[in-house]
């Protein structure tokens, strides 16, 4: 029974559903954050890399003498120095290996060749220029489409003869893996028998997550104690600790990894980079702490790009628009080492979510990964593993099919949606969608923007030669990796954890295996505990990122914090509440079964004046517990999710394109998200804004282009596109709530939806603008130059 009085108590908790201010913001706003580059240890030295100017070259010699002669230089480390420790190569999360320092040859421009260790970063930078490296240039392989030609240059001589490099059989020295899913024969039959077939080649261009804070670390080895402390800006500190132990042989109990405040990750900070390994070695060798921090060019050029999926999508349908089959072929450019970050058994991540929100009876997807002379990576940039690529291909294909059928793309979507009553829904490629209501979401959006009116306006504008486009995207994500039966990293199941301790006065400290990078965990986890335990979120302290104090967890990426870490938090809190119930019964001398939970207290059913608040109970837990019960009030939970969660949304975008310059303006962007239960609506809105900004950046400007020699063009923020507040569109947000049936509080995760859904939505709008004039698909990024080329070809820019 809810009363005004109990509602008032509920409000005071600032728990689930409350748009309370973020607990982390006062320190960030006041400049009191503590990032890895803020850490200064006594006697600390600085490392800086000598990097390759060439994309592909043999190293003939390295001369360190001049660098070593510079005052303040302590060491210059090369692959030969790491060889005795067997650390010149390291394993990647993808089962391949990566050169820590280039061993005999370089395979991409800016590859790490040597590290200089010096008294300060200025001396280190000067010394890198004094290291003389003699190269013999080799022909570079830049175009992935040429990687498997018989005469293609062999990039990885170290693995040229290997039958596999961690992901199955290979057919060529530049071949990494071929992975397929679905019933190929049945899909082929669906295409043979279809009324209508469409096929479209498209590219998810190579981009970089480029968090504001670049990658970096401070490694500090204590020779006397044999202990290594590693301060690291990492999205997965516990995994890093395990890998460091595997590589170094130092017991995991003597390795402490600390992720302090993190200035954004977006997938860039999941992997292990050469800089970390060399810093650790240097600290062990020199007996002093060593700091290594990337500059912006190094970040954009070397540590973990995303995408670079060259795709061909195909749909088979009846002539009235019922989709019968989907076929996707992908050529994946992984660069010189297969260093993507996916759960171990998933070489193409969760790309098989590519049937999207549609009831497609049969589907087949094939992904072929190849080496090129480019930086290694293939990480999930603000998305679950390869989900952006998957959603892009299906959402673009729906529009391509609609165009072919001369059917409105909204109508085609409505016709093919998985219906609410079909959940849990088993997709043709093996997923079990937990819950959703796609038609309601799209209808709500179409009504909010007057979709019919927009189409009418577009037709009028077209008649005047004005270029307006309307894009839709009705996406489904798969996040919250994941059930340990199918998901692991290096053999560690992808559970996550929470440890909650209630103090005698009713304040709480809780630690999780995840790690916040801007998501606001210190606020949202506190809100979850506040609601579950009836204690104010203001007095609940959340700590993450220190492997010496937090329980083991797999970290934060792929929108897994709320689905997995949040679930662990709920379960741990409920264990505490069960103990509290027993204490309350003891204090009131009633039976447990006579008690009912009421916001922040247990009360006697039928006698609401008789109750004990959680604060009363917390105090009693330390002095007056039932006979036989342990004192204290704390719990731990390691949560292995039974399934993934499937957030979804319906987005609509209206663009106007200047027909003389190609400049694009997003006039309207309406984003409806359904992430299940909403913990902090304000934080959700912030997450959606951030993800949409990144989607806008990718769709309209971001790319890492290479020239034919394998030189990376545009690796500074002068060229690599980040919109400022001037360019950023106004976002209109909306939501529906379809809770996840298997998550203990029904939450699904939200931070990546806007990125995943926003990119195809904008791309669909731009392509809609051009396709109405007869153009075919145009690839991203939809920058002014590229738009103008389409306009000029169509002759729309005549004066």
């Amino acid at each position, binding site marked *: 029974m809810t009363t005004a009085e109990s509602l008032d108590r509920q409000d005071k908790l600032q728990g689930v559903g409350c748009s309370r201010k973020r607990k982390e913001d006062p320190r960030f706003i006041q400049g009191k954050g503590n990032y890895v580059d803020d850490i200064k240890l006594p006697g600390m030295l600085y490392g800086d890399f000598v990097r390759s100017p060439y994309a592909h070259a043999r190293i003939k010699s390295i001369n360190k003498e001049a660098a070593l002669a510079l005052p303040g230089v302590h060491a210059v480390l090369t692959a030969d120095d790491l060889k005795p420790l067997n650390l010149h190569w390291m394993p990647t999360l993808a089962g391949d290996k990566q050169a820590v320092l280039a061993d005999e040859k370089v395979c991409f421009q800016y590859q790490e060749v040597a590290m200089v260790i010096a008294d300060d970063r200025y001396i280190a930078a000067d010394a890198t220029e004094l290291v003389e490296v003699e190269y013999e240039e080799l022909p570079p392989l830049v175009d992935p489409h040429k990687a498997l030609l018989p005469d293609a240059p062999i990039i990885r001589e170290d693995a040229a003869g290997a039958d596999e490099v961690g992901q199955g059989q290979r057919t060529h020295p530049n071949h990494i893996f071929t992975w397929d899913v679905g019933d190929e024969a049945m899909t082929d039959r669906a295409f043979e028998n279809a009324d209508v077939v469409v096929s479209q080649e498209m590219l998810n261009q190579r981009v970089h997550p480029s968090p504001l804070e670049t990658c970096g670390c401070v490694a500090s080895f204590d020779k006397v104690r044999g202990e290594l402390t590693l301060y690291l800006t990492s999205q997965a500190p516990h995994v890093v600790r395990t890998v460091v132990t595997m590589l170094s042989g130092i017991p995991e109990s003597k390795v402490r990894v600390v992720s302090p405040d993190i200035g954004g990750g977006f997938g860039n900070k999941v992997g292990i980079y050469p800089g970390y390994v060399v810093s650790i070695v240097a600290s062990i060798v020199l007996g002093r702490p060593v700091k290594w921090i990337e500059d912006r060019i190094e970040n954009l050029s070397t540590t973990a790009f995303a995408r670079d999926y060259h795709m061909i999508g195909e749909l088979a349908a009846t002539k009235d628009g019922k989709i019968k089959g989907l076929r996707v072929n992908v050529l994946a450019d992984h660069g010189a080492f297969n260093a993507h970050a996916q759960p171990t058994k998933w070489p193409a991540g969760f790309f098989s979510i590519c049937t999207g929100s549609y009831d497609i009876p049969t589907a087949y997807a094939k992904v072929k990964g190849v080496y090129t002379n480019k930086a290694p990576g293939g990480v999930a940039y603000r998305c679950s593993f390869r989900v952006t690529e998957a959603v892009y291909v299906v959402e673009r294909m729906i529009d391509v099919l609609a165009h072919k059928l001369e059917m409105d793309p909204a109508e085609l979507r409505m016709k093919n949606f998985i219906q609410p009553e079909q959940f849990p829904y088993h997709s043709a490629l093996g997923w079990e969608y937990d819950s959703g209501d796609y038609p309601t979401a799209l209808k709500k959006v179409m009504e909010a923007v007057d979709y019919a009116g927009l189409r009418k306006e577009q037709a009028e504008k077209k008649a005047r030669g004005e270029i307006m486009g309307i894009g839709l995207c009705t996406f489904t994500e798969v996040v919250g990796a994941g059930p340990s039966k199918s998901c692991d990293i290096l053999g560690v199941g992808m559970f996550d954890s929470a440890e909650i301790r209630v103090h005698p006065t009713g304040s709480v400290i809780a630690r999780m295996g995840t790690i916040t990078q801007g998501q606001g965990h210190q606020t949202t986890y506190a809100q979850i505990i506040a609601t579950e335990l009836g204690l104010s979120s203001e007095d609940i302290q959340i700590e993450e990122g220190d492997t010496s104090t937090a329980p083991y967890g797999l970290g934060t990426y792929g929108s897994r914090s709320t689905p997995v870490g949040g679930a662990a938090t709920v379960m741990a809190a409920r264990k505490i509440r069960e103990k509290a119930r027993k204490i309350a019964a003891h204090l009131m001398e009633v039976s447990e079964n006579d008690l009912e939970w009421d916001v922040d207290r247990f009360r006697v059913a039928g006698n609401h004046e008789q109750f004990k608040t959680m604060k009363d109970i917390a105090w009693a837990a330390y002095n007056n517990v039932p006979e036989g019960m342990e004192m204290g009030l704390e719990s731990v939970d390691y949560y292995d999710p039974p399934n993934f969660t499937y957030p979804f949304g319906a987005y609509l975008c209206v663009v106007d394109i200047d027909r003389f*310059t190609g400049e694009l303006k997003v006039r309207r962007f309406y984003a409806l998200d359904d992430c299940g239960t909403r913990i902090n609506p304000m934080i959700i809105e912030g997450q959606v804004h951030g993800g949409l900004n990144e989607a806008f950046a990718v769709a309209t400007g971001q790319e890492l282009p290479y020239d034919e020699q394998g030189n990376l063009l545009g690796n500074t923020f002068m060229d690599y*596109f980040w919109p400022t507040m001037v360019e950023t569109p106004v976002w209109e947000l909306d939501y529906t709530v379809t809770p996840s049936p298997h998550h203990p509080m029904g939450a699904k995760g939200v931070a990546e939806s806007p990125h995943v859904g926003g990119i195809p939505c904008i791309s669909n709008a731009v392509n809609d603008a051009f396709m109405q004039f007869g153009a075919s698909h145009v690839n991203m990024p939809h920058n002014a130059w590229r738009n103008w080329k389409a306009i000029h070809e169509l002759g729309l820019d005549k004066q």
Partner: protein
Amino acid sequence: MIPGVFDYHAPTTMADAIALLAQYGDEAKVLAGGHSLLPMMKLRFAEPAYLIDLNKINELRGISEANGMVRIGAMTTENQLIASDLLAQKCPLIPEAARLVADPQVRNRGTIGGDIAHGDPGNDHPAVMLAVGASFVLAGPAGERTVAADGFFLGTYWTGLEEGEILKEILVPPVTASTGHGYAKLKRKTGDYATAGAAVQLTLNGDVCDSINIGLTNVGACAIKATEAEDVLRGQVITEALILTAAEKAMAMTDPAEDLRGDVEYKTHMAGEMCRRALRQALARAKGGA
């Protein structure tokens, strides 16, 4: 992103600055706002052994009017240009273009003199100087000389500044009631250099275009004076058809380099489009419009 080793000097008088420059010769670079030079030094594209910082020389700052000319000290910042009532009245093209230079932080430090003297074709003021018919006071060991903006810009990072000279002052003739101006700049985002830009200042005598200057930004090795486009319009009643012809002539005078902003074809067309936009705006203003 860390510069090489250099010595830093911060003279307080022009005489000291000129003496230091004479002493260190081409091993020295003069530092104005630093927003072009310092990034180049951080990338080690430029590794001067000596930096001579002009920021403490007060005589290089300020905007005034004397002898029928508006005089702008070379170390006047972009934001000071934007805030100047005198410029708004007498040389409105300059503050208008300054608003489109880079971003607020850069405009706080970046100076008009640095923008002109650096010789970067992407900088906005060179084309603006061509459009307003400015001249430059250059100070060196042999004293001062005044040169016209037209002919000053010779190539990328190459201007009419002789060895040992420092740009001291910019002289601009004030506009009349029948003068109109326009600066059109296409850029990828706030803070970016122009993909293409055009600066126009014209004066009408009745309906006839009495005088006109057109400067183009970032579509050649240096700022281009689009004389052939000017010739189409000078002495004529400007019509839309003539504007289109003039823009074609301007396009023919460009020689852009391909980069991530666009290829030669796109940049050439954008030079034409910016020219049309700046011309239309200048014409409307000269006729008394906004």
